[in-house]
């Protein structure tokens, strides 16, 4: 009995210690700038919930973030480090623009569907290129992914300045805005498009189900743990790995499509805004358990949105949200390593 209770306490102390350490490090960073840490924390932690507009911004950030993190939890299960998620999101955004620009007069519902399909396809193609490099050229998916990210950024920039440049003059701020009726419908006076969080939640549910309940999910996990042994037991290991990459690419591509039709209403060079890599942090933090993906994605999105007010109210840079997010992941990983 006593040891059981001790174990419980021990299992709780580590996450709490990690949390304390992360905030201690962030506080140090805040103190060095000379602002009141309490005031800064008030904004970072609760700023996103202060007005309906900020709340809707937070949700519109959390949706693509959750999509990427969910996708990454599939590749993690398959034992792959898909650092190319950022590029897959950009490729998805570019591909999602294609039907919107080709047939702007078609019914919006059909166009959104086509755009989502096209975006997912773009992400899948980008992801499978990584898979092919890994499978046939023996390039680690980490380096292949980073390379493909550069390629996607370059392509987006080229499209914005080249074929899809503004009619008035080419501008780094993006393509012409989409016609109003192609924007994903939003709630009155807010920037919240309810479809986006719904799609993300649906993806979370489907992926959780697929990874824990289906034979495919079991095979993916087996491949992630030991590809050689899984292959000996009759699992098509290389194929499963490619499928996890494709699944992650599809979700990242849809995240990119949402950035286009629900957030920016245009293709901009920085369409992914680092959401893919932030999703990597979310997935790392939640790795052991996909049920944590939603709360962590929401927390990270609210840190980012909350910190936007920092430069105006306190005169410090909003990057402090990144410090907090990074420190949380770092200390969580340290705590987890100590448990092992």
């Amino acid at each position: 009995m006593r040891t059981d209770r001790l174990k419980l306490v021990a299992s709780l102390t580590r996450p709490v210690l990690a949390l304390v350490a992360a905030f201690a490090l962030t506080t140090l960073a805040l103190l060095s700038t000379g602002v009141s840490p309490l005031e800064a924390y008030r904004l970072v932690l609760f700023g996103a919930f202060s007005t309906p507009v900020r709340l809707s911004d937070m949700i519109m950030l959390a949706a693509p973030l959750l999509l990427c993190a969910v996708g990454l939890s599939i590749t993690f299960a398959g034992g792959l480090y898909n650092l190319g998620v950022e590029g897959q999101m950009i490729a998805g955004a570019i591909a999602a623009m294609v039907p919107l620009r080709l047939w702007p007069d078609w019914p919006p519902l059909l166009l959104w569907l086509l755009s989502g399909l096209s975006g997912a396809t773009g992400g899948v193609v980008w992801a499978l290129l990584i898979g092919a490099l890994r499978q046939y050229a023996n390039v680690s998916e980490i380096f292949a992914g980073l390379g493909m990210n550069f390629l996607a950024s370059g392509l987006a920039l080229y499209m914005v300045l080249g074929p899809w440049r503004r009619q008035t003059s080419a501008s780094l701020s993006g393509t012409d805005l989409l016609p109003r009726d192609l924007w994903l419908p939003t709630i009155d006076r807010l920037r919240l498009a309810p479809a986006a969080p719904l799609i993300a939640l649906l993806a979370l549910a489907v992926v959780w189900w697929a990874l824990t309940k289906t034979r495919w999910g079991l095979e993916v996990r087996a491949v992630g743990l030991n590809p050689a042994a899984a292959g000996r037991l009759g699992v098509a290991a290389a194929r499963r790995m490619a499928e996890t990459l494709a699944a992650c690419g599809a979700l990242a591509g849809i995240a990119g499509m949402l950035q286009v039709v629900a957030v920016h209403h245009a293709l901009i060079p920085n369409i992914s805004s680092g959401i893919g890599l932030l999703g990597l942090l979310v997935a790392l933090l939640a790795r052991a358990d996909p049920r944590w993906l939603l709360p962590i994605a929401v927390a990270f999105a609210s840190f980012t949105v909350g910190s936007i007010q920092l430069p105006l109210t306190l005169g410090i840079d909003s990057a402090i949200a990144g410090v907090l997010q990074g420190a949380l992941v770092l200390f969580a990983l340290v705590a987890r390593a100590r448990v092992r």
Partner: protein
Amino acid sequence: MHIAVEHLTKRFGSVCANDRLTVSFAAGQIHGVLGENGAGKSTLMKLLSGYIQPDEGRIVFNDMPRRLRGPGDALAAGVGMVQQEPLDIPAFTVLENLLCAAPPGIFRSRRAAQTALLELAGRLGFPVDPAARLDQLTIGQRQQVEIMRLLLCGAQVLILDEPTTGITAAQARALFAALRQIAAEGRTVLFVSHKLEEVAELCHTVTVLRNGQVVPPGQLPMPQPQEYLLVLMFGESGAAPPIYRPLPAIDAPPVWELRNITVRSGALHLVELNHRFPAGRIIGLAGLDGSGQQVLLRLLAGQQAPDRGQVLVNGRDLTGAGALAFRQAGVEYLPADRLHDGMIGALSLADHFALLQRDGLLVDRRRAEELARQAIADYQIKATPVTPIASLSGGNQQRAMLALIPPTACGILAEQPTRGLDVASARAIWSRLQARRDDGCCIIFSSPDLDEIMEYSDEVIVCFAGRIGPPIPRALLSASRLAELIGGVGFDALVNVAR
């Protein structure tokens, strides 16, 4: 150096691998350590050499209590361990490997290290080329390099964990001579083994472990009657060995057929392989390490495609079709390294049965657990359906791997099926394999242990320097003749007669 442990305890989860263990080993002698799988031998040796740390109790070197924080600590204190699998850096040369982890101040220069190495090699009778890369050496040669590295780094106590597994008979003889020399120079040797004959031949004392304790308490002087040691190791129920029974000739169609195969793998070049492997036979592959047995097994498992020629499974041409197609045709491959490419350590037996389910979108958990429970009962596996495979002992892992062979399998390829298992576990494995043979499977296995080949094969195929001999019926073969053939004596004549 005299070493002792007092009330040493090490737990892994709920398992007590070493249970208040007290024993001491005198200097200048070779001490045998016996015990079945899971008795706690490896745990004790890893504690003594700093790879793991005890939960309770003391380790005492020359009357000085020591706390060992790692293998480097232990080596600085004078204890070095040769692992079952060589723990070296394969891309380094022998000399680089010696220099890279040497404590500072031991060698003044590369040249001094080389001189010291060659001098020691001469004294121990190990032929060694300081410039050879380790990945080009055999397991036995790498073991010799490791022994010399530890001695040159100041080891006064040398621990060897199952050192004769995977090395040739000649290498084992050289090893024994060297160990006697090392003990004669005043050092302490701990020799961990399953093999009673080796312990009887080599050791001055013996310590028997059972369930993490020394039975009876303290060391025993050698020699001891073999039956007594068996009883100490396994308890009273030491099973009798199975009786060899010749099989009637079978005119069954071959499970595998090789036609004019040419295949190159590393330094080996196998040419003009024409073989038929009939159903209902156990075929042993004998030969020195790396003589072509592995290539042949990989070829038959579909893991390696031939450069020329055809591989047929049950009459179907599967040349170059890949391991998955071979598996679907009924070929099952059991690798020597169970957790490396045999099973998934973090998953349970039930998970593995679920993985084998071939249809349906969802995992049928209940059915998988039912099959796992059945397998646990049938194969006497010490586990529950949801225990992770990695936490089972070697013998139980091997039984689990056998239990996972689908009933439709017609050909089983087993690489060292009883590697690292104690006598009782090995017998249990073999009775299972023999049952599969009687059901009409063709079983091909490789083993460095000639006794195992002689005891269980219906036919023996000798591999020598990349050449695959014709199958010889076991009844026509004697142990001494087999040993000669493995060394190449009379091998040409055998092949010519077969032609």
